């Protein structure tokens, strides 16, 4: 009993609780900010104003959206499978949150000397972090597939089927792109991968893996966008063909959960990309203790690219998506993997 109390009041436990709180709340806030940013960026690119009525510059728009979704009626089609219909959004959002758990977002810190030993800024430092993220990401597809099936509507079913085929196809390229970076860093832990990117080549080029791994980054970016079902790969919810795809029959908070899962997944994929390719919290000018500032800057940039892509590129055709995944990305990733393996052997043996 005394042990438990001592544990609950120990600085490590409190610090971990704070970190979990930061990540959990941060992801939620990020999702809300992304909804606002998406509409503002879209408006900017289409020379409109975007939301501007709720609060200054429309900043309270996400709050209004959330309130609206809260008070809407929960609808469920009569022919839907009740249990799976409720389970699907829960799986989606849980997988989205879980995937962020092994992602570090800053250098180990003592919280300005409050702690005796520096602790990593991440929820859990798993030594196979890259694989864990990969595994959890592959769980997210179940939410979408089950939503499609349980709704008992043809649009939803088509969305779900497309999504499962797409995710399986692009997971291969995604995994290969991860493998190249893992090979170069020689570790599966994201923290160690980031730490290998701290130096500079020739004194001014940061040792980020994006420079030797441009092909890998390209593959990772394409597969990442496809995995999160964002334009130009947003087939599971292609509005013009499938009404709203897998969440056609969803309303109110259940719909909001899918929505949140999508944005959190974007944040996670971007955060992983920052850690793997863009040097994580390392960067010039800012000391490493405040590295999370660099992390947030890079993250924001990648998220902007996401929005940029959506409002710039039209959607592929479905057969184009499949042939792009299997005939372009996968061979490219494989060749890149082989070249990287040869390079690692040549330079580091």
């Amino acid at each position: 009993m005394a042990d438990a109390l001592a544990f609950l009041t120990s600085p490590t436990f409190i610090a971990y609780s704070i970190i979990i709180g930061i990540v959990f709340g941060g992801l939620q806030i990020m999702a809300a900010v992304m909804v606002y940013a998406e509409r503002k960026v879209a408006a900017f690119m289409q020379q409109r104003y975007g939301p501007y009525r709720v609060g200054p510059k429309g900043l309270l728009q996400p709050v209004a959206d959330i309130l609206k979704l809260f008070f809407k009626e929960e609808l469920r089609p009569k022919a839907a499978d009740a249990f799976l219909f409720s389970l699907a959004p829960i799986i989606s959002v849980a997988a989205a949150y879980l995937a962020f758990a092994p992602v570090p977002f800053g250098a180990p810190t003592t919280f300005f000397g409050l702690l005796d030993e520096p602790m990593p800024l991440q929820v859990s430092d798993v030594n196979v972090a890259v694989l864990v993220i990969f595994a959890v990401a592959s769980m997210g597809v179940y939410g979408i597939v089950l939503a499609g099936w349980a709704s008992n509507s043809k649009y939803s079913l088509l969305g779900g089927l497309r999504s499962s085929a797409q995710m399986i196809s692009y997971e291969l390229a995604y995994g290969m792109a991860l493998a190249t970076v893992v090979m170069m860093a020689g570790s599966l832990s994201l923290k160690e991968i980031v730490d290998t990117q701290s130096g500079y080549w020739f004194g001014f080029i940061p040792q980020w893996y994006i420079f030797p791994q441009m092909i890998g980054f390209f593959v990772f970016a394409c597969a990442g966008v496809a995995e999160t079902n964002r334009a130009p790969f947003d087939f599971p919810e292609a509005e013009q063909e499938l009404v709203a795809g897998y969440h056609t029959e969803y309303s109110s908070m259940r719909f909001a959960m899918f929505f949140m899962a999508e944005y959190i997944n974007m944040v996670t994929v971007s955060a992983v990309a920052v850690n793997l390719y863009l040097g994580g919290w390392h960067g010039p000018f800012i000391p490493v203790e405040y590295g999370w500032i660099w992390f947030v800057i890079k993250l924001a940039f990648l998220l902007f690219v996401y929005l940029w892509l959506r409002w710039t590129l039209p959607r592929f055709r479905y057969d184009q998506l499949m042939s792009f995944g299997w005939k372009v990305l996968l061979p490219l990733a494989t060749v890149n993997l082989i070249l990287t393996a040869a390079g690692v052997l040549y330079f580091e043996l």
Partner: protein
Amino acid sequence: MFYGFAVVTVIGALLVILQKNPVYSVLSLIASFFGLAGLYILLEAPFVAVVQIIIYAGAIMVLFLFVVMLLNVPREDAAEWDRSHPLYRPMAVRIGAVLAVALALELGWALSRTAGLSAGVADDRPAVSSVAELGKVLFTDYMFAFEVTSILIIASMVGAVVLARKRED
């Protein structure tokens, strides 16, 4: 911990064969796989646990779910069973039941006579769980098996494509 994961695994597996709807069967098998992954972590094999999730739960089961949804499989109906099949004759069923009970008894007998069952799994030797160690053994001692596996995969890939292809004629 062990009992928690074991219960999840066994109940998941039981639900797979007790459910009429294939979609629920697939889902309970996924739950069962998560239980197994937990057991692998208890056995200090985190890499196997993660691979279990990625390959089994993340790929193979998605494939199953995909096929179930694509075919829109009818629920298994008891009346549909062909009762005239020779194996359904009462005599055959009784012999089969007796054999099954005998097999279970034999298994229990064999387990009760085996020595060393109560030895703890983690008592004697330290665990080897590093991925590097696994890779080293996989690509040296098991090189031949590894290469043969790749041939197996190619064969199954070609087979699946040929089977699923639409006939031109």
